[in-house]
Structures are given as C-alpha cells and as structure tokens.
C-alpha cells in the first residue's frame, strides 16, 4: 500500500503525507489530552527526508503509542525538516486502528516538483 500526495509547497507536502499516513492507520481520531513537541529530521535528499520523516511519525505511534493529530511545519529544506507535532495518547477504545503499517519503505520513493507544487509517492510495508 502507498500514498501519492501533493502540496503547493514543501511544507504542505510533508504535512499532507504525515496526515495521510495517520489516516491509513487510524479511522477515528477523537481528541484527547494534547501534547506538543518539536521534531527535527535530516535526510540525504528529499526522498530520503520524506521516508525518515514519515518513519518518525510512524514510530510515535508504534513505539511511543502517540497518535499524531496535527502539526506545524516550522521549516523544511531538501535535507532537513523541523516541525511542532500535536499528539494525543493512543487509546484503543477511542482510536479505531484500521491498518497496521510496519514500515515506511524506500521502494519507488519519489518526491518531485510539479507544475503547481510538489508530489510525493511513498510505499508502506503492511
């Protein structure tokens, strides 16, 4: 399974990709007690940065049992992204998990500039 997301800016692209990832995992995301924290990720290039960024979002859920509800992208370049991430604790009675994503892969990873902005294609291991 994968996603193809677009965004007029790189900030929108990375935000849309993260939100798409969470929407695949969890169907219902009601609000809970929110936490905010800073997340910075570096990569070798844009495709690598996208895989690592989504890998961090996935780890928040898989490793820390935190559901990412929203985020503000503070800055993004071709090799670094800084964001403020809004999370709530994972609650199995409130959050309906639809699909288990085991990893974000490099398979056919693509981040390209289009006429109206950016497009990314990412494949997940289920």
């Amino acid at each position, binding site marked *: *399974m994968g996603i193809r997301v677009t965004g007029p800016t790189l900030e929108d692209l990375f935000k849309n990709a993260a939100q798409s990832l969470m929407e695949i995992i969890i169907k219902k995301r009601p609000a809970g007690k929110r936490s905010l924290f800073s997340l910075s990720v570096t990569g*070798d*290039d844009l*495709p*690598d940065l996208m895989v*690592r960024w989504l*890998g961090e979002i996935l*780890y928040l859920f*898989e*490793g*820390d049992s935190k559901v990412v509800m929203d985020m503000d992208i503070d800055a993004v370049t071709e090799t670094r992204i800084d964001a403020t991430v809004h999370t709530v604790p*994972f609650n*199995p009675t409130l959050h309906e*998990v*639809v*699909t*288990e994503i*085991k*990893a974000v*892969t*490099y*398979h056919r*990873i693509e981040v390209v500039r289009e006429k109206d902005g950016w497009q990314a294609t990412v*494949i997940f*291991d*289920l």
Partner: protein
Amino acid sequence: MNISLEKIDDYRWLIPQTGAMHVPGLVFANRELIRSIQEDQSLTQVVNVAMLPGIVGHSLAMPDIHWGYGFPIGGVAAFDMDEGIVSPGGVGYDINCGCRLMTTLLRGDDIHPFMKEKDLVSALFRNIPSGVGSRSPIHLSRSEENQVAVMGAEWAVKRGLGTPRDLERTEDHGAMEGADPSVLSERAIKRGHDQLGTLGSGNHFVEIQVVDQIFDPEKARQFHLFEGQVTVFIHTGSRGFGHQICDDFLKEMSKSAHSGHASFELPDRQLACAPLTSDLGRRYLAAMACAANYAWANRQILMHWTMEIFLKTLSLRPEELGMNLLYDVCHNIAKKELHQVSGKATMVCVHRKGATRALPPGHPLLPQVYRPTGQPVLIPGDMGTHSYVLAGAPGAMERSFGSSCHGAGRVLSRTQAVKQAKGRAIHRELEDRGIFVQSRGIRTLKEEMPEAYKDISQVVDVVVGANLATKVARVRPLGVIKG
C-alpha cells in the same frame, strides 16, 4: 523492463547475465507460473540483486516469487564472505518470519464437535494476543529482553514454556549464534518489550488442520504424521522488534552509501547494503540474530499457550493430546553456510527472503532424528487452502543454496484483494467449506482471501520437479485465527 528468459527445463528458467549483473538469474517455475511472475516487477528485482557485489552462483527466484522491497519475496542470494555484502532488504522487515508445525495424537473426528461449535477457534482467539496494537501479558525488563535476544527459544523453555526436545526440532536449535544486544537501538528495545507472545496481524495465523493426504508413508511415519491426524500450524515472526532493527540498519546503510562509502551504485535504495567484512555489516548480522532469536522465542511461547488452550478446551491430559513439535523453519533470514561454489566448499552468506532452508538427508546441520529423512520443510498455504510438509532433497544443495519456497505467494496486492472482496463475506464463504475463521480485522480477511494467492499445489510441484524437496504430506484447514 523486459527481462529475457531462457528455458532450461520444465522447472527452471535462466535470466542471462547481461549489463551490470555479476551472475545470471535462475527462476524456479513452470510454464503457467512463469507467466504470472512476468506480470509484476519481481524479475527486475532478481536482476537488481544480481548486480550486488560478491554475489555467487545465481540470483535465485523460488516459484512463489512476487515483488518485495529491494529483494523480491521468494528470492535467494548467496554472497562471498570476503567480497560480498549483507542487505537487510534481502532478509525482510519481519526478520525470522517463519512457521512451526505441531502434531497431535488426535484425529479430525475427535475435535469435530469443538470445531462445529467454534469452541476451539474461539478459545484460541480469546487467549492468543493478536491483531494490530496487541500487547502480550509478558512484559520484558531490559535484561530479560537481552536474554531473549541471545537465548531465543531456550529462554522460553527455561521458563517452563516447552521442553529441550522442542529446541532439537527448531532450525538453529532456536537460537542463532552471534546475537549482540549491545548493537540494538533504544527504539528496537522499546518495541520488543511487550510483544513477545503475540501473533501479529496480516498473514500471520494459528491454524488447526487435518492431514488429508500422505505422499511418502515412510517419511510420514518418521515425522509422526498420519492421515486424518489433527495438526497445528503457527506462522509469525519477530514483530515490531525485528521491523525496527531492519528499519534502523536500512537507514544507516543507506546513509553510508550516500556518503560515498559504497563503491557501486545501488539499483534500488531498498537494496542498501554493507560489506560483510565491515563493522556495519557485522553489526547488522548481530542485530538480525537478536531478532531471529526473539522470533523463535515468540513461536515457542505461542506453541505452549496453544497446547494449554487445547488441553483446557478439549479436557484432555497432555499424554492424550500428545502435541509435539515436528519442526520450526524461518523464511526471512541471512545465514553463514557452507556451499559448493565453482566446485569448492565455500562459506557464503545466504539471504533467504520468503524462502525456506531445505537440507537433504545426511546433512550435518540436521538433528539426528532428521538425518535419515532430510529436513522437514513446512509450506503454509494461504487462508482456506492446503499446506504441505516436504522433506529437503539433494537438488536443493546443488541448485538453490539449500533453499525451497515458503508459501503460495501473492498474486493480488492487499489493496487489490480488498477491492475484489467488496460485498463478500469471506468468513462465511470459508465456513461453507467447513473452515472456521476468527480475525480481529475485517480487512485482514479480505486481504488474505484465497484468490489473492497463487495455487500452492503448483508451487510445490515445481519445488519437487526441480528436486529441491520431496512431498511427505498435505494438510487442510479446519479453523484459523488471524490478527
């Protein structure tokens, strides 16, 4: 990419060595399977693997091959220990995903009332942690997790969750050498602490079966298999622990390649790798061994709990149930093994991703009990169809670095399967055929429906035709639990 194929015989097809390939490719398939194999990218991936440094022999494809991340699933490749590489993509995210088969003294009729009323399936479903986000009643401390990573299945046996006999009947005795927990990331440790003793989701399962055909009466007798017998298959791996380890090292190897340490260009980022002689390569193997051992401990624990559930639900004494491990195999692993390369006995690193080791009779790595027969090779079918018990044959050592297929192989992606299953009640379709299924995820049943997979009997026929293994018995499902 159009990959040209040359037929060698009814079961083998050669991809000639061209361009940047260091060796030719070799696909085990019949005429019908080769057509479906050509429809996805798996042959391109076989060619990509052939470009990796230090590969020896052939870049191999089993008959259940389909596209994967980097290496195809159903791919086997061996690398020279001095010149070659190790690649996490050649093992897979689910390190030591594998299966074990347990025999019993029961016949299908003995448990029919408990299947009809779904007592046994429900009891397994309630008591075996499975599904997305499932947590185990076992919560490991840091030092316990380190012990599991080194001891593997023995860790469980020492806690009364099995016997030493089980270890003898597990590949590598249930623990790979060289595991080193000090190379693991905090994230891997964290993900492993409460998943030991969980089934997982997707194509992982516990299946109750009955032996419906014996092909080799003598080997079946030595495997303690008989027609009409109840058997149980468990299929699972190293859970989030293994996934995190694969992810950690893929990223580190990818970074290393980008910073110019690689002397060649990767045809696919997912093939990120490191020389076997490098510190990074050695650390990956040490971490991979930790994950492999975790998976063996996992399957050992799940087997013990399954036995307890059978005893309680059927109100039997252990000697009446007689549940014993036939064998446990891994099908996602990299191993240092001795093989003939250009006529010389050579230590190589064999990557099996969605492929099963298949050692012939007499092989020194086999436990004494299986030296006369060859290694039991367990081939689980997809949900709702047959599974097979094979025995390793000499052709495997000659042709496939001691390897065989691992299952049926997907023909539909999970997304395609869900689309095709729209409007269908898969569990009801299976029930109409006498197979009772309980799954935590409705989507899982659709993703795993029988049409999503190749015809396993064809896959097995190719393996047998190519003399990689021989048929011993076939089992059919009675009940399944899935995550």
